[in-house]
Structures are given as structure tokens and as C-alpha cells.
């Protein structure tokens, strides 16, 4: 990849930036889940690797979170956008060279950002932990060139309309930059107190709601019709999804602070808007599942559809939880417990990761013009993530219910720790399965590049038979 940094734009093969991003994302996924597994081991066995500043839980926890969000999820998004946006516009990526530089500087910036977090150099605000020089770097060096590539590719398209996926890509890149610059206002403007706490959660809510969830959904809007050959069930329902994301998903930030002394009107407003998130959620899930009509066999037979549809099915419990757990009637019980940790993993490791994995599997085959090396290994990967995630989600949900009950009945806290211990072990096992599954995935992708069956010109990878 590095040889293309100083090549002329015309000499860089199409898809180079996307492949660079895709490989990076898998590598960061392995790092991120490895850190997650290590952290989980420390919660189950606290004297495991102790006495070291660098390996202490409080130094590593946020590194796991940011390696997964900015390394895996965001880079898989970048990879997807850099091949899906031009494909849907019947054109080339606006600048492969910018994309390759973008990816290099993204990797360097992320490594630096995580090293600083690891050393404890932090703003002390969850999800916007990065210090403001890193925030500026992320916004202007990591995200802006990526957004520019997406926007210019859409503008220079050779189709008349813009397909649903590209509305989301273009709008979400814009909203991400806005959220990043506005959400970090406490650092630019030295906001303090409740204003700072509220803006912290405004950022955390919107970076999820306006980047991760809609872009993952947009990817499935491309993958499912493309591979099954069915047209999207409804363009209109896609409109409903898009507009209700903009209106309803950008407003309920305060529901993350339901037990804090924020103004009551704000909490009530956020809670109602939070339930209305079910509008885009239901529109989206229905649209995709109805697109599958007559092609459900591919859910079993095709790796990419298997990943995508599993992600979409996981979006159902995700949104049902998300819509209702933030209402006062439920939130007082589960706020601040492992239930929320389980929910966060349902969003990022469940719904969104499965959609992105499909996009990376599919994109690598299309761009390399090679059929996936091994369907068996891919199935192994799928089941490792799905079973690992299920163990994680189930154990953390149970642990959260134990914590919630203990909170209500005012049980001494150490009894909660004792009660949770078995579930902490199960969580660690689940997370470790995901980690090992991902190592197999990287091997499978490397072997696809080296030894996958070439896909004939004019053919889709899905039309070629698996050989292993």
C-alpha cells in the first residue's frame, strides 16, 4: 500500500484505499477485542497481571473502547464507503491517493491517541476521552479527508438519483464532524459542571446515533439487494428511516443522565424522543427483512448475507431495549449496571459489527476479484463471534439484573461482587471467543488475497462456488 503514497492518481488501482482501510480495520478489531478479553479477565480474576501501571484496568478500559470504535468500526465504515459510494454512483472514488494518505494518517493518529489514553492522558469524559489536540486531529486529519472523498464521489456520480445508502453516507459524515466539534465544546470553551457532563453525553449519544447505527444500516441497504439480487423493498420506507434518524436520534442525549440532577423538562423530553427512536428502527428492520423475500436460503448459504441478516435481527432486541430502557419506569432499575454494558455490546458487537464484517468480507472479494478462501473458516468466524457475543450479552444482562436488584434492596456492595463473579468469568470466555474468531478471520482474508479463486470478469463473487 505504501508504494501508492507518492504514485500518480491514475496509477493507483481502484479500491486501494478501501483495501487498506479494510485490512487495518481487521487488525484493530483483533487488538480491540484482545484488550477487551484482557480487561474482562481482570474483572474476573483481579490479581491477574497486577502491579503494573500500564496493565491496570483503569488505564486499559478506554483503550479497548476506542480501539474498537475508532479502529474497527470507523475504519470498516471507511473501507465500506470507499468502495460502495463509487459503485452506487457508477464512478471511481474521487481520490484514491487521498484515501491512501487518509488511511495511513488514520492509523498513525489512532495509535498515538490510544497510547496517550493508555498513559492516562485523558480529558476525563467518557467516549470523548481524547485530549483536545487529538480531537482536532481526529476531526480534520482522520475524518474530514474521508468525508471529502465520500462527498466528492457522490457529487461526481454518473447516475441521476442518489441511492439510500449514499444519503446516509454523505449525511452521516457531515453529522459526525458536527458532533465531534460541538460535542467537544467543553474543551474548546472550558465548559464546566453539569454543562460539561451533559455535553459529554450529548457527544456519546450522537456519535453512536448519527455515525455508527445509521452507517451500519446504510451498509446493509447496499449488501442485501446487491447479493440477493432483490431491489430494496421500499424507497419510501428508506426515506422514513433517514428523516426519523435525523429528527429523533439526534435529540435524546439527556436520557443517559436520567438519575442526575439535570432539568426535569430535559429528561422528560429526551425520554419521549428516546422511545421515538423506534420509528427509524422498525422502518429499517422491516425494509431489510422484506427485501429478503424469496431469497431466505441465502441466509444459510451465503456468508455475507448470513452476517448481515444476523446483524439486522440483532437490531430488533437492540432497539426494543434502547427505546424502553431509558424511560424512567425502567431506567431507575438498570441505570449504571451491567445491563447497559450488555446493551452497548449488542449495538456495537451485535448489530453493527455483523453488518460491517459482511461489508468487509464482500468488499475484499470484489476489490481483489477473488472468491473467499474458505467458507468453513468464515463460518467458524461467524459462530465464534455469535456464540461469544451471546455468552457475553447473556451473562452481562444477568449480572446487570443482579446489580439492579441489589441497588433497589440496598444489599451491601460486596455481595453484588460475589454474586456477579460467575458471570464475569462467562463474559471473559465470550469475549475471548470473539478475539480468537477474529484471528481466524484475518488469516482467511490474507489467504483470500493470496490463494482465493479468481472471480471472472463480469461476475459477482456470490455467483462463484466456495471451494473450501
Amino acid at each position: 500500500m505504501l508504494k501508492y503514497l507518492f504514485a500518480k492518481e491514475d496509477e493507483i488501482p481502484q479500491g486501494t484505499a478501501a483495501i487498506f482501510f479494510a485490512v487495518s480495520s481487521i487488525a484493530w478489531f483483533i487488538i480491540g477485542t484482545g484488550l477487551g478479553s484482557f480487561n474482562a479477565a481482570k474483572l474476573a480474576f483481579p490479581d491477574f497481571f497486577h502491579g503494573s501501571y500500564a496493565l491496570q484496568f483503569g488505564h486499559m478500559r478506554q483503550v479497548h473502547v476506542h480501539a474498537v470504535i475508532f479502529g474497527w468500526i470507523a475504519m470498516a465504515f471507511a473501507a465500506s464507503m470507499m468502495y460502495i459510494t463509487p459503485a452506487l454512483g457508477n464512478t471511481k472514488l474521487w481520490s484514491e491517493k487521498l484515501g491512501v494518505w487518509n488511511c495511513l494518517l488514520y492509523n498513525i493518529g489512532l495509535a498515538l491517541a490510544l497510547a496517550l489514553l493508555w498513559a492516562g492522558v485523558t480529558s476525563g469524559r467518557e467516549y470523548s476521552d481524547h485530549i483536545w489536540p487529538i480531537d482536532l486531529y481526529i476531526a480534520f486529519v482522520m475524518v474530514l479527508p474521508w468525508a471529502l472523498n465520500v462527498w466528492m464521489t457522490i457529487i461526481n456520480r454518473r447516475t441521476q438519483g442518489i441511492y439510500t445508502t449514499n444519503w446516509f453516507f454523505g449525511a452521516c459524515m457531515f453529522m459526525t464532524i458536527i458532533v465531534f466539534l460541538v460535542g467537544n465544546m467543553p474543551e474548546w470553551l472550558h465548559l464546566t459542571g453539569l454543562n460539561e457532563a451533559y455535553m459529554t453525553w450529548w457527544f456519546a449519544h450522537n456519535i453512536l446515533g448519527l455515525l455508527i447505527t445509521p452507517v451500519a444500516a446504510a451498509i446493509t441497504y447496499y449488501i442485501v439487494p446487491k447479493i440477493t439480487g432483490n431491489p430494496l423493498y421500499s424507497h419510501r420506507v428508506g426515506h422514513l428511516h433517514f428523516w426519523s434518524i435525523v429528527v429523533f436520534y439526534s435529540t435524546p442525549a439527556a436520557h443517559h443522565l436520567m438519575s442526575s440532577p439535570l432539568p426535569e423538562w430535559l429528561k422528560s423530553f429526551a425520554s419521549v424522543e428516546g422511545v421515538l427512536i423506534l420509528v427509524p428502527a422498525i422502518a429499517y428492520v422491516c425494509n431489510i427483512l422484506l427485501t429478503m423475500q424469496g431469497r431466505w436460503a441465502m441466509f444459510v448459504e451465503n456468508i455475507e448475507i448470513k452476517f448481515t441478516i444476523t446483524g439486522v435481527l440483532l437490531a430488533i432486541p437492540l432497539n426494543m431495549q434502547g427505546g424502553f430502557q431509558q424511560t424512567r419506569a425502567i431506567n431507575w432499575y438498570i441505570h449504571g449496571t451491567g445491563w447497559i454494558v450488555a446493551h452497548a455490546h449488542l449495538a456495537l458487537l451485535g448489530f453493527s459489527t455483523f453488518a460491517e464484517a459482511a461489508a468487509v468480507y464482500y468488499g475484499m472479494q470484489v476489490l481483489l476479484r477473488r472468491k473467499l478462501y474458505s467458507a468453513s473458516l468464515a463460518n467458524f468466524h461467524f459462530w465464534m463471534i455469535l456464540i461469544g457475543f451471546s455468552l457475553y450479552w447473556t451473562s452481562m444482562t444477568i449480572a446487570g439484573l443482579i446489580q439492579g436488584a441489589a441497588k433497589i434492596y440496598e444489599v451491601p456492595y460486596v455481595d453484588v461482587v460475589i454474586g456477579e463473579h460467575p458471570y464475569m468469568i462467562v463474559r471473559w470466555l465470550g469475549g475471548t471467543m470473539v478475539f480468537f474468531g477474529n484471528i481466524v478471520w484475518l488469516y482467511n482474508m490474507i489467504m483470500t488475497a493470496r490463494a482465493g479463486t479468481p472471480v471472472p470478469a463480469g461476475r459477482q463473487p456470490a455467483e462463484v462456488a466456495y471451494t473450501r
Partner: protein
Amino acid sequence: MAFREYRIGSIMFGVALSISMFITIVLPGIDISSMSSTKTALEKQLTYGWETGFNYYDPFLQGKDKPIKVVLTKDPATGEPIDQTDAYVFPAGTHFPDGITHDNILGDDVLQASVSLGKMDQASEEAGAVFLVQATEDDVPYIENATATRGWQPDATLNAADQQFLAGAGKTMFVREGCWWCHTLLPEETQDWQTFGRPPLVGDFNGESPTTFGSDRKAPDLLHVGSRNSSREWMTMHFFNPRLVQPHSIMPRYDYLWGDKDANGNPVDLAAWDKEYFEYAEGKRVYPPEVPTPAADSEARMLIDFVLNLK
């Protein structure tokens, strides 16, 4: 522009996002900013100083540029006995907290009392200052600049102090070491009153940055922990190895915050301690090894001071 057929959509998108941000940022900002600082907020500001996360004055979060909270029983200027008083000492060059530098966050009454009664506006960062938290007859809290009103100089006040709490530097440790990933500082309004104490009020946070509420309570809430457990010995053992005082704890050990030397100047040998501790854990020893007393300038002492000061 190939966007022409999307003109209406683009405008609608901008309008929708702007209205959304107006409702969720501007309106709450106006509402929250209209809240006056409470007495708790003034105490927190004076204890923790300027920002505690990454900032110009302490970029690597080492606990620099922080005030010292002291307990006085005699007047530092005259040496006369006085009622026990908490004072907040900002040695020369220490940056003042938000309430003094951005005094609009105090609220009108608090600001007026702080200036007219407390002479807050006469304090200077270059010379340093000693502050007190007082209340008017109408129970309006205000900041008193004791350097101007009583002639208490920072160095003299430190010398006259019965106790010094490095709680400001300790908050830096609390942020850097990620204590807030497991311990919340936010008793919930619905059901935490009996176990974890009074939930905070709206104005309790003015001027504090970061607030480190925490979101995932894997461990007890700490907002009032110093009222539940004020034993420095217990805290020292618990930070060195939580399993010494609570066998089921899953908290990490913070023994590395002791640094190289303990309070007596003896080297802290974590490996040797660990060996003896595991002999104790396996039943080969009757007592666990002694926990070294942290040195006066150690990071462990700062963190313990912070926790004990959470009343």
C-alpha cells in the same frame, strides 16, 4: 452541482439538525447555566482548582497546579486559637478555579457576596491566596479571600495547618487511574439515599471539570465515602491491595502509586511484598506483610486524601 435535485432535501436536513441542536444544546445550556453555585460547588472548586483532566498546566496528569486543603485551629496571621476551619491554599502560581476566573458561573447573589464581603476580586494567581467558603446571614454561600480579609498568606497558612489534604492532586489521580470507570460519584435520586447518601443538587457541579459521574457502577458510589469510612489506615491497606481488607474485592491494586520510597525512606519492593502476600494467601503465614506508609509526596497519598475528603 449535481446536487440540484436534492436542494429541498438538503435545506430540510440543515433545518432539522439546527432545530435539534437548538433544543438539545442551547435551551439546556441556558437553563443549566442559570443555576447558582451551591456551597458544595464552591468547596469543590476551591479543593480541585482549575481543570483536572488534560490541561496546559498539568498535561501528563501528575497532580501539578493544584490547591491544598488545610484544617486550621489557629489563625495563621496572629497565632490566636480559632474554631476549626477548612481553608483552601493556592500557593503562588497555582491557577484559580472556574468560579474565580469565570465568575458568571457563581450566580448573581454568590458573586455579589464574594466580591463585597469576600474581596474575591483582589486575589492574584502570581502572589497566591488562601480562600474560605462562608455564608451570609441569608445563607447565600460565598468565597472569602482570606489573604485580603484576614492577611493569611499561603506559606504561613500551610505552616499553621493541623492537617493538609492533597485532595486536588488526588482528583487528578482519580481521573488518570480511571477510578471512575467503576466507582460513580452520583448517588441516584431514586434509591441510593440510604446506602450512598444524598444525591447531588443542580448547582453542586458548577465549575467542576471533569465531573467524573461515571456510568457503569461496578463498585460502590464514592460521593460521600469519606463520611462512611474515614480511616486512613483502612484506605491505605485497601489501595495497596484491596484483598487485604475485603477478600472478595475485584478492585485492582494501586501499589505502584507508592513510588520508590515509603514515608520512612525505605525502598518499596513490590515483588518481595507480593511473594510474602501469596504465602499468606496460601496459609503459610499467619499475618499478611506490612503495608508501607505512603510518602508525603507520593501519588498514593494524594489519592487517599481525595477519597477521605469526599464527605
